[in-house]
């Protein structure tokens, strides 16, 4: 099926039926994944999927409809439905699609599609997952079972068209593998952890051995974990946990929340909000990045947007609607699937690396907490409260010591950003959000 032509046709039909503006967003994908258990396949999934979302503006009223049924009769009714929904909405002068000028200025994002991933045989996934399982078991006999071990890939195509002259598409590949082992101490004590890699290109993917071994190491070292006393101490987040913190901070930099005065960053643009080493960037152009694309969910070119630079709040993330409301410019951060209207999201989000090794960051702590897993949703970006369940290792005299569980770490987002007194040199992206190891000079650990 010619999806580009279909997108245009739907837009034209909407315009003919009375839409002032219209935009079609089509997603087509296929995926394949495998999980293994005890040296054999546990399950195998293969699928194709597609869907279309249609956004119409009629007299500054917005309507949106989506469907995964491409039957011609359904598609006809679907255009009518979007228009009818617009008539149910209230007029809002900020409604509108990105204009021609907003759609221009694309930069080269490089390749996003790896034929090696697109043609990956099922055998490769089975073999990879089996190797991960073997490596994890070989690492330590206390690894007795797995929640899951798997590998997979997906290929995704996006087609967009609008009355404002937009007509484009791109396709990308994704390949991933992971292990979630469980370690047993033989006396009923169980601990789990995980390790994962997720890339666009096959040659960038870690080895199965590395994934299995690291996952096992992280699970086994937690055996015997205990609670500690409540205290205020230096706290280090490992890169995975630091990435979740960066996600919380960036969520507060959503232009929509700023406009609604519902973020800790309200009124702080251009001001110091963090330690001077802190630079957080959303980069839609990152070469080979998982979150890289030539344009966002409404056709606006992606770009590099510094949110915090050397501790100073530099910018917010916008889609077209919010930008218009706030008198700003879209930053190319309209995120969406076919079944949703564009909303503000991240492209590739990361905290820039520092120049200290993670070993040094740990080595400088006499008594502190190294966090490797967390529970809960993290921060309230309106109030800045941060409180999460945490597991990890206690730090004694600069060395990782006994495992710790059933405690929380708490602070407030602004205070935490300012108290970062060490940033590691170990930035690696294992997903669209990444960070190096970070150290907070003091957070509250709640336990006994």
């Amino acid at each position, binding site marked *: 099926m010619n999806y580009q032509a279909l997108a245009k046709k739907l837009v034209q039909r909407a315009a003919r039926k009375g839409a002032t503006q219209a935009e079609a967003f089509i997603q087509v994908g296929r995926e394949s994944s495998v999980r293994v258990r005890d040296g054999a*396949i*546990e*399950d*195998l*999934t*293969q*699928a194709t*999927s597609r*869907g279309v979302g249609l956004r119409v503006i009629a007299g500054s009223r917005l309507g*949106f*409809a*989506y*469907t*995964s049924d491409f039957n011609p009769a359904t598609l006809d009714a679907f255009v009518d*439905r979007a228009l*009818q*929904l617009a*008539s*149910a*909405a*209230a007029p*809002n002068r900020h409604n509108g699609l990105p204009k021609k000028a907003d759609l221009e200025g694309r930069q080269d994002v490089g390749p996003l599609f790896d034929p090696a991933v697109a043609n990956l045989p099922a055998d490769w996934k089975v073999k990879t997952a089996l190797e991960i399982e073997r490596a994890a078991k070989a690492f330590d006999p206390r690894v*007795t*079972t*797995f*929640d*899951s071990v798997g590998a997979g890939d997906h290929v995704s195509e996006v087609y967009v068209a609008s009355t404002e002259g937009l007509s484009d598409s791109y396709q990308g590949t994704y390949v991933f593998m992971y292990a979630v082992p*469980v370690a047993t101490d033989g006396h*009923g004590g*169980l*601990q*789990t952890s995980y390790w994962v890699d997720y890339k666009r290109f096959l040659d960038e993917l870690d080895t199965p051995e590395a994934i299995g071994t690291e996952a096992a190491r992280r699970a086994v070292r*937690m055996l015997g974990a205990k609670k500690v006393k*409540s205290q205020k101490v230096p706290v280090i987040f490992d890169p995975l946990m630091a990435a979740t913190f960066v996600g919380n901070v960036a969520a507060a930099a959503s232009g929509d929340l700023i406009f*609604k*005065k*519902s973020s800790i960053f309200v009124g702080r643009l251009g001001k110091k909000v963090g330690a001077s080493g802190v630079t957080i960037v959303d980069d839609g152009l990152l070469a080979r990045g998982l979150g890289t694309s030539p344009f966002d969910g409404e056709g606006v070119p992606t770009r590099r947007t510094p949110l915090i630079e050397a501790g100073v709040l530099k910018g917010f993330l916008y889609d077209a609607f919010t930008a218009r409301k706030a008198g700003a410019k879209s930053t190319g951060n309209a995120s969406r699937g076919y*079944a949703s*209207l564009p909303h503000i999201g991240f492209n590739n989000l990361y905290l820039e690396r520092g120049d200290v090794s993670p070993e040094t960051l740990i080595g400088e702590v006499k008594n502190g907490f190294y966090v490797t*897993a967390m*529970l*809960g*949703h993290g921060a309230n970006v*309106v*109030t800045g*409260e941060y*409180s999460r*369940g945490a*597991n990890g290792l206690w730090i004694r005299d600069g060395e990782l010591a006994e495992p710790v*569980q*059933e*405690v*929380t*770490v*708490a602070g*407030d987002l602004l205070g935490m950003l300012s108290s970062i007194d060490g940033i590691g040199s170990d930035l690696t992206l294992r997903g669209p959000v990444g960070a190096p190891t970070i150290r907070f000079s003091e957070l*509250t*650990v*709640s*336990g006994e």
Partner: protein
Amino acid sequence: MKKSPAASLVVPAIRSPILAPALLEKVLARAMARGGEFAEVYVERSVSTAVVLEEKQIKSAQCGLTQGVGVRVIADGKVGYAYSDDLDDAALFRAAETAALIAESGGSERTFRVSRAALPSYYRVDTPLADVEVARKVDLVKRANAAAYAYDKRVKQVTATYADTSKAIWIANTENRLVADNQDLCRLGVHVVAEGKKGERRTGFFGGGGRVGFNYFDSFTPEHVAKEAARQAIATLGAVDAKAGQQTVVLAPGWSGILLHEAVGHGLEADFIRKKTSLFTGKLGQQVASPKVTVIDDGTVANARGSINTDDEGNPGQHKVLIENGILKGYMYDAHNAKLMGQKSTGSGRRQSFKHMPMPRMTNTYLAPGDDAPEDIIRSVRRGLYCANFGGGQVDITNGNFVFEISEAYEIENGKLGRPVKGATLIGVGPEALKNVTMVGCDPMPDPGLGICGKDGQNVPVGVGLPTLRIDNMTVGGTRV
């Protein structure tokens, strides 16, 4: 009420099979063509509507249609799964052939007959939610918005969301079973930001719904929802930081049932038991909670959000006692794990959509009421924390660590509620926390119908419920040492 031009706008929900049983039988035959012990076809058609109001304006009204088929083949205990958004004959057969690739034994020509099984009816909705005019849904969020602002002039932001789905499913399998069910589900939610002195901001959230008709909102009014959301935000202005460390906590009834869902519920799902990744593995018949604790998972509660006439494998929803007077009585099984473990399905096989394989999930999970009057429970605590409202929770089923976030809390001083507290999170290990339950209220209450449970990337609607509860030595996460 003013009539909107969209008054006639509906996308009719489908109430009768869109695929003939004879076609489903052919698809099953194709799925078993290479051998295997079981095959299943799951067909879904969902119509969803959502209306969002923010900044005093309707931000969007949207509507969508999702349909597709998922085919599962089990051969030698291995599972092949394929899905497609297309429902034409060719796509159905293609999905069946893809799922069949898991089987290697080489099958033979077999035919399968399915016959429609009768199902119970726990949530009959006369007018499917998809058939209710969008204008009425728009009106609901407008009323909520007005009521929230009217509550207090410190209310500065209101976001009101109404969402519904009319979902129809058909499940046919090689055990001759064919079931069809219509599952309507809706919720209204209001989020409020209040601003106090010196720019202090607090948030409040309330909402509810269930597998109910639209007239549910005649009694569960948008005004009631909005006032409660606004009340939470205003009541917590000026809250003090939570004190860190072990305390006696009292949980208000209702939403606090998240505690059960996280602390024990997930750990009793049979896939974790089979894989031996749950700390409850091998503990049937053992004391895992205080004798005051009886935990039930019940998919048969009338009109509740987590109720199911059939699970997503064609087995009826059930009432299951998981823990009785502190003794572990049973796990929650889907059909696949039950078969592998020599057990029977408990009607717990659920999936988010045709794009997902079913797995054991909770439905409505609640704690049976005890004898204590709620006021006596609060009065019994010299110093502690009263948890009035809750955010979300999460559990690590392997080590049992769970958290749940407290969105509205008060200090308890000498048996009386004191200052509001902010930023508190409860953390514990499931069985230990439940062994520390010392008082159980006589005031059972279901949550208002908002719960979404996520597992392995799949979301399903669930319910929870709890009477007022006292737990001793609970670790409260906070910033004050």
